[in-house]
């Protein structure tokens, strides 16, 4: 069959004559030991929509990623206009005119909506910087096209999931590509939003764009597609024009056999009421949910992704706490503070996210399966492998798991076998209530049937089962009753026999004419608070200023020298040094890395610069600066290369390079010290001289900050640094060379560290191998206190300046009131803790406010 499909395609190409804009030819893709796609060939034609149909795990997303340049085929190739091409990065595919809407949006919560849309292809002004006006203008237009009504300046992280999906669509449209690939774009969208998207697609078809649509909903596929390609188990089963392919035929091709015999007969009686929820609500999840579950019953929860199904399951399993309502087990109200409590009440939850929440991928089968019953495997306190095998082997055998040994890592298993391990793991806890969240997602047809048979069997034995599924036939085929949810509300309940696909779908998607007035009021209230992020920013800066004043005012009253010109000059010169170093650290931190070696780089470059000035007094400033920058730049590049090419986490790499740079410095210096009279006066004047009362070093720091501002906020590369830290995988997905950006950040940080070293050497004149020892703590503290997030993606220049000033004002104040300088360290520590404590508090409040707005 496969051969036939491929041959038919080949003939089609010959007949049509003109080459397709893009095609896959005999493409094969393997990940580690598993083959995701095997010998698939198809083409996308101009002015046509090809729908890609297949069950989860059939290889659809792999096809998308091959065409998008995210993965390179292991065998076969991609053709553009009939010519063989190799996409090294998603950027190459973009350059070939291919735009992609990814299934999991590769978006950046810390950047604005407009930046998200234009990242990777930002409009430039005549200096090569970002043309903000053009970008905002373009963003507004394309947002209007997809029907998303939010200001283009809004920070993306504040949008809802469906709104973010629309931004992803807008991003793909903004590319004006000739090939558009849509990977399940409608999964999180409402009916109205889907209609809008289809209008756009129809328009693009008129303009000759070649499109590929990946989806699960048959209705949508048969509405939008011209041709349909069906995949099963990583193989292309065939490509047919829509007119030649009926729904039944398409489904048969997808699953490989008739659908009717998929679901087991179930006709036993249900028992007593086991679990009951009354008025269960949780902000941003669902509200006022009632449900009853009896022994031996399979209760279905239907609805779109994000309709609140999983959120209900999480509350029933004790992962989240409800805001209102109660859960009753056997008629008694219970509260689950944790998953453990729910497990003690004999509830088990098979999560929809197999890799993220069900299995530790590099653990063995045994360790995964025994995880919830570890205590049972440790009779005398010591864990026994044999006893653990005894515990889980029974279920694994019943599940007909195909495996080579209990010690085999689960990541080597196929999706279906992995799911069997998950089921065995939970069934071993002997639950009375089993919650199955998408239990057949991404598994092969055979295993699927086994899982269905098992569900029927367990129910027949009296287990109460909740089944959450996006597959309509599965819900209808398996469940005694189906509750349908839409946007967190219960919209319908069907008994077995009265549910049809159409009825369930309608209940799940019907646009809410009778929308909850409370929700409307809340969202209106939220709209009034749109400026919240900006206020927060103000508050942080205000807080730092207040902290400075809180130190400065009382100190000035005790010791008026605080505000003397000499003292202010000294503080400003220290601040200049610290701000340059903090900027270096910020560059690295925003890419989600850290540079612990910064002080060692400063020390090394300071010493090298000073010794060069000593050796060549005639060239003093020139050679000093050049040496320091060269040393710093090289050190930074070494760090960057070890992190990006060597794949070593930044914290480890720079921890080691810190010792290496220090050690090298110490060996080089061999205990020597360079004092003020060994260098030239001009070198010392480089920082000490005052222009209009301002020390030169401060002017230099201000210039560096201005350059930093231009780099970070006015160039595309700067925004890509933020993007790389905000969502590294997303950045790779849209073709940002993340590794090169990280290398750049380390290189720049090294360069700035070198410059800081030169300034240090000039300011302090006397230099030895221990310069700036322990300074990294102060540098990181300035960045953290200034609001640069260690998790990457966010931070402001004003923040680091104020952070650095705050620390120095505290230091200066303590010195002036004659507090022992040794105490300073403790105070810095306290300041860091207070700053991150307040940060977390603010972020939490913002999250709560957002969640309240989301519903």
């Amino acid at each position: 069959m496969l051969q036939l499909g491929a041959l038919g395609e080949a003939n089609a190409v010959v007949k049509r004559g003109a080459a397709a804009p893009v095609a896959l030819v005999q493409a094969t893709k393997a990940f580690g030991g598993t083959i995701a796609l095997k010998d698939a060939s198809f083409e996308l034609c101009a002015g046509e929509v090809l729908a890609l149909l297949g069950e989860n795990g059939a290889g659809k997303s792999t096809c998308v990623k091959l065409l998008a340049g995210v993965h390179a085929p292991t065998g076969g190739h991609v053709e553009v206009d009939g010519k063989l091409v190799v996409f090294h990065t998603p950027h190459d595919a973009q350059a070939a005119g291919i735009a992609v809407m990814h299934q999991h949006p590769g978006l950046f919560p810390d950047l604005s909506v407009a930046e998200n849309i234009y990242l990777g292809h930002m409009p430039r002004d005549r200096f090569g910087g970002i043309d903000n006006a053009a970008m905002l203008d373009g963003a507004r237009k394309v947002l209007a096209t997809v029907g998303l009504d939010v200001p283009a300046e809004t920070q993306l992280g504040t949008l809802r999931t469906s709104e973010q999906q629309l931004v992803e669509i807008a991003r793909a449209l903004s590319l004006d590509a000739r090939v558009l690939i849509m990977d399940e774009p409608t999964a999180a969208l409402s009916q109205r939003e889907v209609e809008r998207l289809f209008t756009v697609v129809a328009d693009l078809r008129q303009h000759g764009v070649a499109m590929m649509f990946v989806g699960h909903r048959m209705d949508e596929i048969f509405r939008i597609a011209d041709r349909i390609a069906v995949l099963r188990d990583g193989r292309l089963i065939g490509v047919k024009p829509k007119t030649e392919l009926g729904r039944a035929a398409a489904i048969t091709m997808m699953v490989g056999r008739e659908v009717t015999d998929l679901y087991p007969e179930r006709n036993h009686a249900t028992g007593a009421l086991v679990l009951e929820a009354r008025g269960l609500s949780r902000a941003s999840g669902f509200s006022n949910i009632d449900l009853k579950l009896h022994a031996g019953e399979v209760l279905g929860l239907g609805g779109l992704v994000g309709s609140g199904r999983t959120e209900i399951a999480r509350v029933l399993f004790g992962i989240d706490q409800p805001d209102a309502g109660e859960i009753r087990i056997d008629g008694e109200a219970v509260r689950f503070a944790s998953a453990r409590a729910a497990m003690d009440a004999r509830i088990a939850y098979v999560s929809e996210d197999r890799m993220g929440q069900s299995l530790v991928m590099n653990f063995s089968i045994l360790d995964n399966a025994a995880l919830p019953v570890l205590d049972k495997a440790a009779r005398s306190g010591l864990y026994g492998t044999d006893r653990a095998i005894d515990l889980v082997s029974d279920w694994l055998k019943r599940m007909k798991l195909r495996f080579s040994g209990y010690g085999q890592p689960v990541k080597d298993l196929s999706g279906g076998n992995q799911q069997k391990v998950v089921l065995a793991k939970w069934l071993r806890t002997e639950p009375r209530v089993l919650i199955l969240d998408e239990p057949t997602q991404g598994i092969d047809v055979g295993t699927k049937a086994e899982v269905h048979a098992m569900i029927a069997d367990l129910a027949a034995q009296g287990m109460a089962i909740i089944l959450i599924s996006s597959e309509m036939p599965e819900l209808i085929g398996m469940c005694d009753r189906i509750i349908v949810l839409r946007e967190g509300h219960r919209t319908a309940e069907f008994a077995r026999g009265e549910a049809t696909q159409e009825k369930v779908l309608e209940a799940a998607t019907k646009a809410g004419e009778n929308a909850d007035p409370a929700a409307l009021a809340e969202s209106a209230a939220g709209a009034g608070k749109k400026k919240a992020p900006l206020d927060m920013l103000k508050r942080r800066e205000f807080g730092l200023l207040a902290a400075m004043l809180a130190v400065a005012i009382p100190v000035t009253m005790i010791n008026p020298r605080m505000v003397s010109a000499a003292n202010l000059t000294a503080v400003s010169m220290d601040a200049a040094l610290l701000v340059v170093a903090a900027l270096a650290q910020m560059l690295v931190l925003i890419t989600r890395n850290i540079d612990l070696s910064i002080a060692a780089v400063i020390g090394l470059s300071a010493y090298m610069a000073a010794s060069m000035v000593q050796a060549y007094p005639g060239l003093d400033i020139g050679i000093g600066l050049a040496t320091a920058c060269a040393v710093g730049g090289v050190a930074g590049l070494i760090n960057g290369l070890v992190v990006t090419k060597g794949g070593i986490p930044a914290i480890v790499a720079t921890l080691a390079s810190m010792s290496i740079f220090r050690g090298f410095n110490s060996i080089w210096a061999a205990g020597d010290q360079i004092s003020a009279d060994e260098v030239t006066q001009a070198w010392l004047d480089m920082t000490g001289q005052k222009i209009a009362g301002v020390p030169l070093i401060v002017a230099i720091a201000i210039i560096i900050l201005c350059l930093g501002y231009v780099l970070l906020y006015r160039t595309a590369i700067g925004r890509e640094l933020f993007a790389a830290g905000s969502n590294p995988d997303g950045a790779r997905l849209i073709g940002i060379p993340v590794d090169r950006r990280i290398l750049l950040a380390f290189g720049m940080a090294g360069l700035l560290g070198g410059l800081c070293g030169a300034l240090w050497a000039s300011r302090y004149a006397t230099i030895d191998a221990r310069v700036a020892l322990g300074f990294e703590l102060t540098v990181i503290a300035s960045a953290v206190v200034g609001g640069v997030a260690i998790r990457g993606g966010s931070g402001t220049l004003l923040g680091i300046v104020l952070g650095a000033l705050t620390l120095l004002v505290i230091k200066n104040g303590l010195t002036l009131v004659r507090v022992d300088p040794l105490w300073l360290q403790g105070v810095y520590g306290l300041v860091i803790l207070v700053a991150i404590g307040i940060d977390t508090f603010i972020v939490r409040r913002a999250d709560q406010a957002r969640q309240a707005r989301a519903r």
Partner: protein
Amino acid sequence: MKKFLRSIDFWDLLLATSCLAIFLYAAIFVPNFVSGFNLSQLAASASEKALLILPMTLLIITREIDLSIASVLALTSVIFGLLVQTGVPTLAAIPLTLIAGGLLGAVNGYLVSGLGLQSLVVTLGTMALYRGIGYILLGTGSVNILPPAVVDFGINNLPGTQIPWTIVPFLVLAPVFAVVLQKTPTGKRIYALGGSPEVARYSGINTGRMVLKLFVVSGIVAAVAGIVYTARLSNARANNALGMELDVITIVLLGGVSVFGGKGRLTGVMLALVLIAIIRNVLALSQIGGDAQGMIIGMLLIGSLLVGNYWRSTQELLSRSRAMRETKG
């Protein structure tokens, strides 16, 4: 036999071979290396680091880190010294110091697990804070008049052997940690938590309490190390063990524990400890200073991790081509 061979980790084998090679090299080429006195000194000087690697290993396996561990050592050393100085009997001072260590660890643990802050930043803060408190309590001064029993513990060997008393706390605690990590449900939970915090949470493991407990343990063990350090140098002061956290973390990472969590065993970490202790000793005997030693160990860390990464990617390549062959036809 085959099973036994497979159970040996490639990394452990590499570390063991390196230890042996360097030991042999030193025995032949470095004078005074294989003297009982030198080896005894070697063991004594590693006493505190040996203790600190135990909780650090557990923390890094669970994806956390404790940068404040050397500061806790210093502060508990100061507390112990002050207690002894004010006339508290040694037998009462020791448990009080351990409790203080536990409390310091609990503060870290609460900030990390209770407030959900990143342990890297939290312990960076407490690293400065705890040492600062040490300075506030004792300034630059020191307590160096200690009870004879403590001094004896610090300098004597086990009767009839060359084994210093100071390494005994490690020799007692190490098997306990190893058994807990490899042979108990708690150990399995620690690995699960590091392997995937979400999976651990969904499997009914109380992840917050586990992290809190580990930080408390870290504080208590650091307090033990604080007492050992005080006894060994007959000195309680606030700048004790300055920068030791870096050495400790280096040893743990060199021992094959991944900062991404879920991986690594105490055997590897202990081999790394021995390796680094020998290297430092050999370098010191060859008149090479502390900074240069640090440089060599830094290079060793980066070099070994690079080798490990390339080894792994080569293996993945092999397994993929094997899979491709198997599915042909």
